[in-house]
């Protein structure tokens, strides 16, 4: 696939011929991979590559892949689950985990063969790393410089709270925050890099100010006013989508340390948010680069035929997409989709067909590295698919769209891989990667400031989809715990309230 007819570098001696890795060999491979990645123009954070054992890999899994994290039972549960499945051979562990920080930390499993280590160094330490450094979402919302410091602060702070207020009290707050974690993302404000010490000072200052603000908010004298006026002054004035932020700033009964914990969970959620929005692109980008970097090594004679056979076997396994009727099918493989789209971008740039010229007039025939760099920097999964999913890839994967309307007892195929269907398939697939569609869209709508302080949230129903009742009630219960007064969750469709969950201190009602 990767052809360079013009440039054929002189053959060199292979770096190694055996399949076991040593630190010296890894160093050699890493150096060559770094050189080639540099030639391709990949811009990365410095790399920190750590070799770990399977047990440490399970530890890493358990703490949401964070090198440092606070203690919580749910991480322990995750660990036990992974451990049990792994020991019984029900699942394999990842070959690597990469963490978005500066320097970029990649964990490599010691069980990997030399080929696999080279593959994952190219994949994680150069593919993912350059994506972390340059994609606009990561640039805007995450701060790779300060995350380790922040997590260190978070862990110490929560441990301190546990000592002061007891494990149970802290656990209650964390449980409630975790339930709302996906709704703790701030889309507009950008976090600001701080050292541990600055963070501590800021926190103390914040504690005092926050409490003052809250007192101010509730310091309302009960003046008899017309009902109508209440409707004019809603609080918050605009609906707010960052529920955790709203609670941190406005929940009347919380102690300062509880607000700080909400803030920590919110920050972590914010930090992980771009990863959830760029799964396809990020994996596609990394797969694309490990593929081309290792091919370049082969072309230069640095690796043997045997190495390449082993590599291609891993590679094809990773980017395999089982069809929907296969027992192995579990949704669209983000590696396949992402890798396929990245390869398509290069192909469309280098050797476009007439179809490509019609669909992608802007990029057909442009220098491929520039095109791909542009795509990597400025998109997320949703927009990337909407912009760049090519008809040829739709044909290759034989994608088709099925409408599942719960009111009908059949599913209807709405588009297939034909001229009439490309645009529809592309739009539908793109919509499936929009977190706004995947997750229920819930906003803080109103607080009854002058009455019983009840908090009203609104769920805008997307295409008539309701909330899953059981878990929603649980989350509302947690929400009530943080807010301290009644909480009402309304599901709204077309401006009309369809259903309602009410949780007061006395319990759930409807």
């Amino acid at each position, binding site marked *: 696939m990767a052809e360079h007819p013009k440039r054929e570098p002189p053959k060199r001696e292979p770096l190694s011929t055996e399949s076991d890795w040593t630190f010296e060999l890894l160093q050699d491979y890493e150096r060559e991979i770094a050189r080639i990645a540099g030639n391709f123009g990949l811009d990365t954070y410095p790399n920190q590559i750590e070799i770990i054992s399977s047990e440490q890999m399970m530890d890493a899994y358990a703490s949401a892949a964070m090198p440092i994290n606070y203690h919580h039972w749910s991480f322990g549960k995750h660990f036990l689950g992974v451990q049990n499945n792994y020991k019984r051979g029900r699942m394999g562990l990842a070959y690597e985990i990469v963490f978005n920080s500066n320097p970029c930390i990649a964990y490599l499993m010691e069980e990997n063969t030399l080929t696999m280590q080279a593959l994952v160094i190219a994949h994680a330490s150069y593919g993912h790393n350059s994506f972390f450094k340059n994609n606009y979402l990561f640039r805007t919302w995450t701060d790779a410089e300060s995350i380790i410091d922040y997590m260190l602060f978070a862990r110490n702070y929560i441990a301190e709270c546990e000592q002061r207020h007891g494990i149970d009290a802290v656990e209650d707050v964390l449980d409630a925050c*975790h339930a709302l974690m996906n709704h703790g993302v701030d889309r507009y404000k950008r976090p600001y890099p701080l050292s541990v010490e600055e963070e501590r000072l800021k926190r103390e200052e914040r504690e005092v100010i926050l409490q003052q603000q809250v007192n101010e908010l509730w310091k309302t004298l009960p003046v008899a006013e017309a009902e109508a006026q209440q409707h004019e002054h809603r609080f918050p004035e605009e609906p707010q989508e960052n529920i955790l932020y709203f609670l941190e700033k406005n929940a009347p009964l919380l102690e300062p340390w509880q607000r700080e914990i909400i803030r920590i969970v919110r920050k972590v959620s914010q930090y992980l948010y771009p990863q959830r929005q760029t799964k396809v692109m990020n994996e596609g980008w990394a797969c694309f680069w490990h593929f081309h970097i290792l091919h370049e090594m082969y072309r230069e004679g640095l690796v043997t035929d045997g190495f390449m056979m082993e590599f291609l076997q891993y590679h094809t396994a990773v980017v395999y997409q089982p069809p929907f009727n296969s027992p192995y099918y579990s949704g669209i493989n983000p590696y396949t989709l992402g890798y396929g789209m990245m390869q398509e971008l290069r192909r469309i740039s280098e050797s476009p067909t007439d179809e490509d010229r019609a669909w992608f007039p802007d990029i057909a025939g442009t220098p491929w590295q520039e095109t791909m760099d542009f795509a990597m920097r400025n998109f997320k999964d949703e927009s990337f698919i909407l912009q760049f999913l090519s008809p040829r890839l739709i044909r290759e994967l*034989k994608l088709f769209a099925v409408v599942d309307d719960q009111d009908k007892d059949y599913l209807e195929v709405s588009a297939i891989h034909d001229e009439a269907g490309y645009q529809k398939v592309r739009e539908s697939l793109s919509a499936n990667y929009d977190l706004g569609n995947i997750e229920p869209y819930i906003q803080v709508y109103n607080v009854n400031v002058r009455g019983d302080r009840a908090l009203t949230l609104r769920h805008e129903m997307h295409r008539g989809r309701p909330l899953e009742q059981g878990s*929603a009630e649980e989350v509302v219960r947690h929400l009530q715990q943080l807010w301290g007064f009644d909480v009402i969750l309304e599901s709204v469709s077309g401006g009309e309230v369809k259903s309602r969950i009410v949780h007061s201190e006395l319990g759930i009602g409807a």
Partner: protein
Amino acid sequence: MGFLIDRRNNPKQKSAVNRQRFLRRYREQIQRSVADNLKGRQITDNDRGEQISIPTKDIGEPQFHHGRGGQITHVVPGNEEYTRGDRIPRPQGGGGGGGGQQGSPDGEGMDDFVFQINQQEFLDALFDDMELPNLTKRQLSGLEEFQRRRGGFASDGAPANLSIVRSLRSATARRIALGAGRRRELRDLEAELAELAEMPQTPEHDARRAELLERIEVLREALSRIPFLDDVDIRYHRHYNEPVPHSKAVMFCVMDVSGSMDQATKDLAKRFYILLYLFLSRNYDRTELVFIRHHTVAKEVDEEEFFNSRETGGTVVSSALDLMKSIIEARYSPAEWNIYGAQASDGDNWPDDAQRCTALIRQILPLCQYYAYVEITESGDKPLWQTYSGLEGEWGEVFAMQHITGPGDIYPVFHELFRKQSA
């Protein structure tokens, strides 16, 4: 260019705290699971961990999800037969065809969450809310274990234990004490000398000055000969051996092995003994076991013989109690040992023996911390039960008895016997 770091030797148990948190949070469920599993466990299994399963719904972490209903468009790969407008019957049960995968997470959630706990955690869960009903006796058991403790100072010892502060302090004291008289004289003489210096020079005065100077010289010489540090000043830190108090328990396993006790019944008894032994060993530093089996006569045996050999014949319970009493008198002084009795029987006894049994058990109970009688029987009250039944009221603190009919009863019965009493 990157750094390579070998982390394999770093501590592995990074999640240990989180794991403990999880176990702590779900203690009740784990206990329930342990109690359930105990029924199926082999007798010899008690030194390994246990597989615990908890219903997934109990340990869920709730989040807002979409439920069933409304409209979803799935995009699915691998189309071979469909064209636009085709209608597909809705696949049942969420899984399988046309893309139920994204729609509903309810396919999962029915399975139990399964994980392993180790032996220690297993025992913790097993005995968590139980306690030994009576105060334990802690006894200095003689020359078994000592702890080195610091205690004052000594005038001899190893150089490493030299106490510099103490040594110098006593040196100073000695120097002050030895020199005091001479220094006083010296001060007087020097004062006189100073006075003389004021006076006019006469031969008498000169003679006196010479005398004084000579005497001062002698005194100074004497003072300078007092040693700065002498052997008698040296002090050492003293250490001594303090005996560590130990609690010791002895557990008497008394079992009827007459013809009426079949192997299944003995197995049940054995399970009960093992639980008791595990429980005692967790509470005491040392636990000894005495096995007494009896039919018409009682005999002290080793563990192997206790559980495995077969006997036939009638049952005289008092013989075992008699032996237990004499062993206590001979080897286990109640002042020093915590004595526990566990008797298992199918409840048979010679009718004539009841009187003697009652008398003996009344002598034994005051010596014991606790005496538990379990009757392994299908049917109602047997002779021995009736013999003992008067005791519970009178000796309620020390004596308890329970029925066991099958393996499932053992843990509940055990739990009942050692339930934490609220004070």
